[in-house]
Structure formats: structure tokens, C-alpha cells
């Protein structure tokens, strides 16, 4: 079982290794933020101090520390600590506050703050400069070691970044399993986004209700589906190479997207547009939920339905499939329609994430999508491949990009590394399946 899993999803191991690798490299001291950390501090203060004690909550000017200090101050007031003061600012502001307390002649019982403030020189100098405050305690949530990579916000960023590519890769996997290729998906992203947002603009613009957004999405997706159907028909009926057919569609769809908007972006879009790409349902980002649903459905479709099996058969040996009664032409049209619908949906997600429809989005995406599929273990010669492998492939690409961003590697270097990793992953896959690199190395060793 494990072995089968490894052979089917060997790339999963690579993904895990990459995650471990980036986790180790981005391991850093983390300071707790938010209400849990504040609650912990308040408990401590309640236990150790009287309500009349003077307590100073300090926050540095950044998006985590300042709200933390303010929140802490509010909560303490509520608990009855009436002599709580809140200081948000730079170290100098803290000095002014301390001077003020000293001038008023009060004692200082404690300074409660987030982790970054404890590193201020002012805090260390208190016993020296303010001997009367030498009994004051500095309280901060305990810091801990945790990789930046594995922070919740970062993991969500990884999904956000890959969701469009991953959705389209579902259709591309099916196309590639039939030994085809679909180069048009990048342009269809733009076409769908432009058509969708144009409809939203024409049917109410900013004030348009949610169902208009849905209608825009549907029309955008279906337009792509029709384009894909035409492409599939040309491939199936006239035996034009998929590469050429979809290359032509790629050019035409891109041009069409620009023609529709006159080259401009569409900004007058409904407020409900970002819901799909940026919103949450039940606490889960919609994009994540969408990915899970689509991949589960596609996996079941490919592994457990008749049409799924036919797709593999057509790619494995078209003639043998035909002579076994498989409706080959229908299967081919079907996969191109699915691929284009997926690209259309990808366009809707992209428009929703960017909150606009722009004709120049999705450029080069077809190549990233193909890379995800191939890294995921699907053979370009057709007949074999796994949907979940593609998901892993998409994540490998996204994780590498994200990890390099966290490590501060510049974007030109990133492209070189990404290209090399894709090539390496595919070589590894060939070696695992008993061909390619291993055989080559063995031969070399023998001579």
C-alpha cells in the first residue's frame, strides 16, 4: 500500500521534503499576537498586582504590536485596573510617559507589552535612569520558535498563489492524459475574466447584486467552454495537432480579450466580486474550499467512472481504444471542453482576486500549468497520470516560489531555480519509473 502510494504519488515525498527544507531555513523566534496572548498577560497581571497599581501597556508602531497594546489596555480597564496607561509609539514616547508618571509622583508596578518592545534599550535602562521604578516588572507573552513558512498566513498565501493554476491543471491533466496539450488556457483566463467583468459592469456596475456576479462568471466560463469545444472538435475531427490548434486559440483568445476591452482594464465591478477569490465561508477561504471540492470530484471522476477510464485508454492507445468501442472523438472533445471550462473558472478566480478584469492576466500560465501537471507525474506521451499528482505538482511549484520569497531570493534567480527544479523533478520521476536517468547511469557505469 505504502509502495503503491509512493509509486503513484512519489512527488508527494518531494513536496514534504521541500516543506521541511523551507521550514528549517525560515525557523525564527515568533512573538505571540492577538487575543490569546493578551488574555494570558491579563491573567498574570490579575494574579500578581492590585487594581490600584499603575500599569503601562506599550506598543511599537506596527500592525501587530500597536493593536495588541491598545487591546491590552482596554481589557485591563474593563477588569478594573483603573490606573492603566497605553503608550503606542517609538522608544521616545515611552520615555515621555515614564517622565510623566515620575512627575506625577506615582510608582510604576509593571510594563506590559508585546515581544518586540522588550528589546528596546529604554526598557533595559529603567533601573539606571529611573531608580524609583526599579521594582517595576516587564511583562510580555513568551516567545517561541516557529518557521515563518509554516505560519497560517503564509500557508494561505501559498494556496492563494497557486489556486488559479491548480484549478486549470485539472483540465490540463485530462488533456495531457489523452496525449494532447492545451496551450490556450492562459489566454482563456483573460477572456473569461474580461467577459465576466464586462457583464457585471453593464448590468449594474458597483451596485450590482451577487447574482449578477454569478451570471458574469457563468457566461465567462461557458464562453471558454464553447471555445474549447471548437478546439476539441478540430483536433478530433480534422486531426490537427493539439499543439497547433491550441496555439492558434491562444493567440485568438488573447486578441479577443484585448478587443473586448479596447486594451483597458474593467474597474467598475460589483462589491461582491472579491467574494470568490478573497472571501471566506465558515472560516475557510473560498479558494481552499473550491480546490478541495474540485480535486476530490476530478479524482473520483478519473478513477471511478467510465468516461475517466476512456480518457486513459484514448491516451494509451487511441486505435486500440477505438476498436474496443470507445467513442474516441467524443472523449477528445470532452477533455478540451473541461480544460477550457477550468481555464474559464481560473479567470473568474483571478478577476475576483484582483477585483478587476484585465486582458493581460494569465500570460505564461499555460506553461506553469503544464509544468504542474508534468511535475505531478503525468506523462506527456499520454495514457498515464494522476489528478492528485497534479495537485502535488502545483503545490511543489508554489512552495518553491513562496519559500524563495521568504528567503529573500530575487525574482530572476527564482526563475532559474524553478526551471531547474521542474527539470529535476521530471528526471527523478523517470528514474523512479525505471526508465531514463537510472538506466542511462547504469549503462555508463557498465562501460
Amino acid at each position, binding site marked *: 500500500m505504502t509502495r503503491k502510494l509512493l509509486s503513484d504519488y512519489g512527488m508527494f515525498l518531494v513536496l514534504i521534503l521541500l516543506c521541511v527544507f523551507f521550514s528549517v531555513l525560515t525557523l525564527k523566534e515568533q512573538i505571540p499576537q492577538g487575543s490569546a496572548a493578551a488574555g494570558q498577560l491579563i491573567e498574570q497581571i490579575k494574579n500578581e498586582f492590585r487594581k490600584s497599581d499603575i500599569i503601562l501597556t506599550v506598543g511599537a508602531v506596527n500592525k501587530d504590536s500597536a493593536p495588541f497594546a491598545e487591546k491590552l489596555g482596554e481589557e485591563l480597564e474593563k477588569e478594573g485596573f483603573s490606573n492603566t496607561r497605553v503608550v503606542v509609539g517609538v522608544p521616545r514616547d515611552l520615555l515621555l510617559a515614564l517622565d510623566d508618571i515620575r512627575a506625577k509622583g506615582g510608582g510604576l508596578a509593571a510594563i506590559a507589552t508585546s515581544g518586540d518592545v522588550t528589546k528596546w534599550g529604554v526598557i533595559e535602562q529603567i533601573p539606571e535612569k529611573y531608580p524609583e521604578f526599579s521594582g517595576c516588572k516587564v511583562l510580555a507573552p513568551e516567545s517561541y520558535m516557529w518557521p515563518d513558512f509554516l505560519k497560517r498566513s503564509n500557508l494561505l498565501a501559498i494556496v492563494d498563489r497557486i489556486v488559479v493554476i491548480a484549478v486549470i491543471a485539472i483540465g490540463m491533466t485530462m488533456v495531457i492524459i489523452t496525449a494532447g496539450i492545451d496551450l490556450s488556457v492562459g489566454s482563456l483566463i483573460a477572456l473569461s475574466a474580461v467577459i465576466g467583468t464586462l457583464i457585471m459592469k453593464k448590468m449594474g456596475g458597483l451596485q450590482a447584486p451577487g447574482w449578477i456576479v454569478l451570471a458574469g462568471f457563468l457566461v465567462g466560463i461557458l464562453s471558454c467552454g464553447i471555445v474549447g469545444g471548437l478546439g476539441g472538435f478540430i483536433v478530433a475531427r480534422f486531426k490537427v495537432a493539439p499543439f497547433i490548434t491550441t496555439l492558434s486559440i491562444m493567440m485568438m483568445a488573447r486578441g479577443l480579450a484585448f478587443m473586448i476591452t479596447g486594451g483597458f482594464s474593467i474597474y467598475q465591478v460589483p462589491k461582491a466580486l472579491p467574494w470568490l477569490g478573497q472571501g471566506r465561508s465558515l472560516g475557510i477561504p473560498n479558494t481552499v474550499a473550491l480546490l478541495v471540492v474540485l480535486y476530490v470530484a476530478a479524482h*473520483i471522476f478519473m478513477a*471511478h*467512472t*467510465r468516461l475517466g*477510464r*476512456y480518457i*486513459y*485508454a484514448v491516451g*494509451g*492507445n487511441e*486505435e*486500440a*481504444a*477505438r*476498436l*474496443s*468501442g*470507445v*467513442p474516441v472523438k467524443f472523449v477528445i472533445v470532452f477533455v478540451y471542453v473541461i480544460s477550457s471550462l477550468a481555464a474559464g473558472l481560473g479567470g473568474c478566480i483571478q478577476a475576483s482576486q484582483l477585483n478587476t478584469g484585465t486582458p493581460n492576466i494569465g500570460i505564461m500560465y499555460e506553461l506553469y500549468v503544464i509544468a504542474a501537471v508534468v511535475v505531478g507525474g503525468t506523462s506527456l506521451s499520454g*495514457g*498515464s497520470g494522476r489528478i492528485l499528482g497534479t495537485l502535488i505538482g502545483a503545490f511543489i511549484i508554489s512552495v518553491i516560489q513562496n519559500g524563495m520569497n521568504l528567503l529573500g531570493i530575487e525574482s530572476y534567480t527564482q526563475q532559474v531555480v524553478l526551471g531547474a527544479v521542474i527539470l529535476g523533478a521530471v528526471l527523478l520521476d523517470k528514474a523512479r519509473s525505471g526508465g531514463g536517468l537510472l538506466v542511462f547511469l547504469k549503462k555508463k557505469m557498465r562501460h
Partner: protein
Amino acid sequence: MRQIDKSFPGVHALKNVSMKLHRGEVLGLVGENGAGKSTLIKVLGGAHPPDAGNIFIEGQPVHIPSPTAAQQAGVSIIYQEFNLIPDLTVRENIFLGREKTRMGFVRAAEEHRKTLQLFRKIGINIDANARCSELTVAQQQTVEIAKALSVNAKIIVMDEPTATLTTQEAERLFVIIRDLKSHGLGIIYISHRLDEIFEVADRAMVLRDGEHVGTQDANDITREKLIEMMVGRPVESEFPKRAISPGRERLRVEDLCRGKAVRNVSFSALAGEVLGFAGLVGAGRTETMRLIFGADKPDKGRIFIDGRKTDVRSPGDAIHNRICLLTEDRKGQGLVLIHSCRENFGLPNLDRFVRGMFLDQRKERQEFSDFVESLRIKVSSHEQLTMNLSGGNQQKVVLAKWLARNADIMIFDEPTRGIDVGTKYEIYLLINRLAVEGKAIIMISSELPEVLGMSDRIIVMHEGRIKGEITDPANTTQEDILSMAIA
């Protein structure tokens, strides 16, 4: 070649085979399909490295890891599928990869002169500037021979060279072969037409199931003895007998036409009978069956199934009308080689394994298990890839997938090609059983003894036309069929 040994996954293709070829000799290499002839040749030609054993040429041990190395060692192999590039001229093909150049430019005039010189040597007359696609098959073959000579080949191997030639063309080829022989070349001649072996070969070497059974002077051996060596037992028990009871008409074809391949073919097949189709390669038998099965579109013609006129537009239609076709090209058309046995088995049967929206894979596995047992298919698991099976087991998987459809009309196109003797017999028994069950069986075979031994009736085709029908195969000879075909 000494003690050559070679295995493929699942097959021990060559077991310690040694062969010796003298200068100025034609060695006939015979054996049933799958006996190891082509593997032996591929080892010699550098296409497959041997697992063990050595090759000596003129007493020197040579290492042949690639086709290029074979060429350098003086071995030229002329395969059934020629290695000529159709859009290049004869001259360009002969010098392909070894162009005569000066400062990077091809010296066409010199190449042309050399080509004509070669052609004179083997006594042929072909335009050196013609494109190879314009040549006849026989002409292409002589171009291959000229190409072999141009690299100073010492050994020329010909794999089934007459398979697609006319009788006159074959005669001309024999003249060329005798001429090459007199120039001191060694020639290995592979053919399953035994008459040719007796005509051109000095000695005959027999392979069976990867083993070297023996080598005999062609003058010292009879045809019967040679066949016995090939199949490993006396010949008369080759085909199992059964009771014949033809029933009503299952299939009737009227005036079926497609281009030059199939011309006005009409016949009928009855329930409970084995209808044999005999003829030379390219006689139009396979093409006819593809029309009946809906794999190609006929120009005209009518098909009646159980007396009802039926339109068969696609293989799917044919299957729906309870026809199945086991193609001659097992690997190219019968199986998806990179998929498992179970998946191949399921492919035409998925409609029966559907439950709701999904496939009932348990049912699929169970049914396949039954066939693995009843047909005695040797697989390591249901998930074994069909590319790793031996020819016989591949054919059994194909049989299983069609038997599971329980069709009424079963068309077998060369059902025993490339299959070992034991499995052949099993397939004959199976065909007989299916006939007894009341199915109409159509069997195409290029092995005349097989058609004669298995069929209740034989239809003879030649150049797309039906030339005659034999209703009494038991009292018919191979010569009768051949003379009917080319009459």
C-alpha cells in the same frame, strides 16, 4: 554467435543459442513465430544487447552495443519495415549518415556515380534520383540491399524479404541473393515460407521457444521433418477436431467495397461454423473485416446481422450488435500496452460494470479473475502491465476482453501469430468451443495449414476480391488454395 542468452520481462527469449555462418553461404533461419528468430537477429544487429554470450566475426570477438556498431562490424539487417526515408531520393538514402562531402557540401555527383556502380554490381536498374516513396516494395528492398553493400557488409540478414513481393519479384530477389553469395557474403535468410528455404538456403537452422533445435543441410532434410523440428511434435495432431453442425445465418455481407483493398465482397457466416479466410498478405481480408466491424467506412455494401440489415458506423456500433474483432496487430490495436491487464480487459466491457455513475471495480476484478483461471493467463497480478506479458498471454488478455462480451459473431484476425505452440493449441480448442456454442467464427490466417486444419469452409481472397470458396477443407491442399488465389 556463441551461447547467446536473452530475457525480457516474463519471457526467456533466447536460451544459449549458438549459430555459425560461413562465407558465401545462405543460412535459412526458421521457427514458429515467437521462437526467437527476430530476437537473435536484433542481438546481432545491436538493437538488443545480449544478457550473455559472444559474437565473433571472421574469428575476432566483436562487441555490438548499437545498430551503428553493427554496421561498422559489417552486419547489415534488412527488416520487414524498411529503414528508408520516403521523401529522400534513392541516392540520399543510400548515403544517409555517411554523405560524401567536401567542406560540408554534399558531393552529389560522386554519390550518384557510386550508386550506379552498386546497382550494376547487383544487376538492377533503378533511377538513383527517384524518391523512395515512388518505388515499389521490391525496388525499395533492392535499395536496402545496395545500401548494405555500400557499407561493405560482410553479413546481410533478410527478415521475411518476400512477405510483400509478387512471385516474379521474389524470383528476381533470389537471383540477387545467389549473386551476393558468389561474392563471398554470408546471408541469413529468415522466412516462414519453407519452399523458399529449400530454394535458396544451403543450410536451415531451426529455433523453437528460444532454443536452437538443430541445423541441417537443406539437401538432407524433408519438409515434414523441418516442420516437426519447428513445432516439436509430429504435425498431424496440430488441430483439434470437433463435431460440425452449422446452423442459421448469423452474418451476411453483400457487395462490400472500399477503394482497391476490398472489391465487391459478398459472403455469409453461419452459426456454429468456423469460416476461414485465406490469401496472401494484402489480399484484403483484414480490410474486409474492419469494414464489418465499423473500423473503416465502406464505399458501399450492405451488412445483415441475423437477417436484419444493420448499419455499423463505428466499432461501438459493432460491439452493440454483438460483433467483435480480435485484430492481427495485438500490440498496436488490441491492447493499451501501458495499462494493466485488468484495465485492458475492462475497456470494451465498462458498460456492464457501471453502477449508477461509478464503475463497480469489484465486479470487474471478479470477472477478470474467472478468465485468468479459465484461460490460464499467466500474470503476476491483475495490475501487471500488458507490455510485460509474453505474446501468448497478451493474446489471452485480448481473448478474455472479447469473450466477456459474449458476442455472436467473433472475427479472429491471425489469432495465433507470434504465439508459442502450446498456447496455439489452447486457442484452437477455444475457437472450437465457441463454434459449438453456436457463435459464427470468422478466422483469418496466413498460415495455410492452420486455415485448412481449423475451418469448416474457406473463402480465398486475392487483391481485394473473393476468388473462390472451399467447402471441403479436409480434402484440399495448400497448393489448391494458392492456385485458386492467383488463378
